């Protein structure tokens, strides 16, 4: 999801100075998860990448870090309540990428951030545990309201502002969120996305901001209020660049694809339901040295193109299939190209978290063919000639190693 969100900003053509990944559910501990993202986004090696990991407030942490370094903050989260829990019912998964920068392209200025850090036990999870625990809501709301009120009034005071044009308030605690919404006029309050998507952890602050940036006019003020491990109030003001459609790309821009997901599949994907595997050997995890040798291909989906005859190769080849010339190739990125299904099948025997596997031969526009899995699709609805686009996914996890690579999915409306 993090890669998917960040790709919309085309960071490979306009690289950030730094990359920050915020999540409460890192794929790895003891290893920087942003490094994998860095590779999948084909960022230059000199771009510093780090994780801001563990808590909902980490999302703001990544934004602060990116703010001071002209960086790209990617807030991506998966919520992990146990079956039947309030967290499961109210949780949502989302990823948001925010590019910070200087100069004329900025669409909103970060004016002031007022913060209070206060220690009390309202929500926590021991590393390794699947679910979070929470103290009683009545306690939590009592602790949050005074400190949040304080940061809001401080930030408005600093800006000598009575009433911001747009306000978003958020907290993992629903009662606190409800109470805070009562402080503001209805017309300036943006929709509470918890009802629509669920509370999305580190990503929620980014989602709230993104939602406002979609509708804000030049010169308007935006107040973001977050109650989580303390209180934060951030005031931003849009510039006259705000209308640029390239600057804000989100599901609000007409991406209305909805794939229904049954609860059994949801539980399986969450790792909460162990299903009977096929009578086949377990997949073997990727090994580090070959993954490094083929890094541009594996992580970035970069093929090669013969400089002599123009033939595209995927995976990249040293010897051209067409003219047989040796070592005369240029890198040829394929991740952003549309492909068409040449032929396909549905494999009922192969290992997958989401059986049956739809597998296809796809041909990229401008050349190149690969054998790939088609995801987020109904096996009945695929046919030869369909257009597909590439998406970066975890194929499986074996021996404690996540195997990331690319899959195809039917082209979504945008």
């Amino acid at each position, binding site marked *: 999801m993090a890669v998917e969100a960040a790709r919309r900003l085309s960071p490979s053509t306009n690289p950030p100075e730094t990359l920050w990944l915020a999540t409460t559910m890192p794929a790895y501990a003891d290893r920087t998860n942003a490094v994998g993202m860095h590779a999948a986004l084909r960022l230059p090696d000199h771009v510093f990448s780090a994780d801001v990991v563990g808590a909902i407030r980490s999302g703001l942490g990544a934004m602060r870090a990116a703010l001071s370094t002209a960086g790209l903050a990617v807030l991506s989260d998966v919520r992990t309540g146990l079956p039947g829990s309030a967290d499961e019912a109210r949780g949502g998964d989302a990823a948001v990428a925010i590019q910070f920068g200087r100069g004329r392209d900025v669409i909103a200025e970060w004016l002031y951030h007022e913060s209070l850090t206060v220690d009390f036990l309202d929500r926590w999870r021991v590393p390794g545990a699947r679910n979070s625990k929470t103290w009683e809501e009545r306690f939590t709301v009592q602790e949050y309201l005074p400190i949040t009120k304080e940061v809001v009034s401080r930030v408005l005071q600093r800006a000598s502002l009575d009433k911001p044009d747009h306000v978003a308030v958020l907290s993992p605690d629903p009662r606190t969120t409800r109470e805070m919404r009562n402080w503001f006029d209805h017309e300036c309050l943006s929709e509470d996305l918890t009802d629509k998507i669920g509370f999305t952890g580190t990503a929620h602050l980014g989602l709230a901001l993104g939602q406002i940036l979609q509708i804000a006019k030049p010169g308007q003020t935006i107040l973001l209020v977050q109650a989580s491990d303390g209180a934060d109030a951030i005031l931003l003001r849009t510039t006259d660049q705000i209308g640029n459609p390239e600057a804000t790309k989100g599901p609000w821009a007409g991406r209305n694809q909805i794939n229904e997901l049954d609860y059994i599949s949801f539980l399986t994907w969450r790792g909460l339901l162990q299903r009977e595997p096929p009578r086949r050997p377990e997949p073997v995890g990727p090994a580090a040295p070959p993954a490094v040798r083929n890094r541009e291909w594996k992580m970035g989906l970069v093929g090669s193109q013969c400089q002599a005859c123009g033939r595209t190769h995927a995976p990249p080849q040293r010897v051209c299939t067409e003219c047989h010339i040796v070592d005369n190739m240029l890198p040829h990125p394929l991740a952003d190209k549309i492909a068409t299904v040449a032929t396909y099948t*549905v494999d009922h*025997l*192969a290992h997958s978290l989401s059986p049956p596997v739809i597998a296809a031969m796809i041909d990229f526009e401008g050349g190149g063919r690969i054998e790939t899995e088609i995801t987020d699709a109904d096996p009945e609805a695929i046919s030869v000639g369909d257009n597909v686009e590439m998406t970066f996914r975890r194929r499986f996890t074996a021996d404690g190693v996540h195997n990331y690579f690319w899959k195809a999915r039917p082209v979504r409306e945008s």
Partner: protein
Amino acid sequence: MIVSKSIKDSVAVIGMGCTQFGELWDKSATDLMIEAVQETLGVVPALELNDLDAYWLGTMGSNSGLPLAKALKTGYKPITRVENMCATGSEAFRASCYAVAAGACDVAMAIGVEKLKDSGTSGLVIPDPIRDGTFSEMTAPALYSMIVPAYCKKYGVTEQEMKEVLTRIAWKNHQNGSKNPRAQFKNCPDKDMIAGSPTVAGQLGVLDCSGVADGAAAAIVVSADRASDYCEHPLYVKALSIATGSGQGTMSPEYDFTTFPEVVESARRAYSQAGISQPGDEIDFAEVHDCFTPTELVLMEDLGFSERGSGWRDALAGRFDLDGDLPVNPDGGLKSFGHPIGASGLRMLFEVWLQLSNSAGERQISGVSTALTNNLGGQPGECVSFVGIFGSEPG
């Protein structure tokens, strides 16, 4: 360009053996090799084990010739283990033929063996090399099932017609296999049962797939001019050809999944070596690599037995039936005889051996003197294809 020089009528097979194929829970690879070698030596009374000068062992289940040496106590004779995916058995045979033709040895043995059913898994399992995790995890039936929508689209065949064709191919091979005491499956499922078998991949049901089997087969090769000293009906080698693809099909949009270019090329070379211009007329019967039913369909066109786009009509019309114009897989094929990888190429040859010496019993085709075997390894788009042509008479 001469890709492989013809050794037509230079060498001949003077004895063959083949074990029962199937889920042989009570037999090891060692047992299977001993049985195949014993049977083979049994049909050549003039030879003892010690008279064999060299061996080529085709198997994916070991890394050297040692298992054969240890099983049969072959002393210090040279044994070379060869592997070329599902064409392994044919590759072992090809090496033996060339060794004899070159004069490097007088009597060579090709033996293929596979013990697949100790793994406890469904389908064929090929040990994974250490890799980067980008390779497809697709199973073999899924890979070959990709032929189906491509063929239908190209030739305007409906899904229903295609299902009928594939079912007919499986039904025909089961009919043939039911007449073969060594076959893994001797039952004759009716067409409804085949068409209704549980789906494995795409349009393919379980009964569109070859049997995963244990088994072994062996052949003794000598120079053609000495062949009649050893047996009454030597099998003369007319052509041997292997084509290895460069993976163009899985990388190039030009490949359309309705043909195996490797088969077309290996067949072209084999026909040229054997001096065959009208394969559909000059070949009396063929053993082909029916790993999955759509494979056999496409092979009929690639081997030149059917016009492009008309193989499905020929299959439906019964042209490749045991009593048809050009019988294909009279022994039941991979479908019914079973597919122990390293042994399959030699199993195909075993049927040629039986038919051309008029010893195929209930499934004997009358008046046959020229036969073809086609053994395929890999997947549509990147594979290894073997074509061999054999005759009952020296040239």
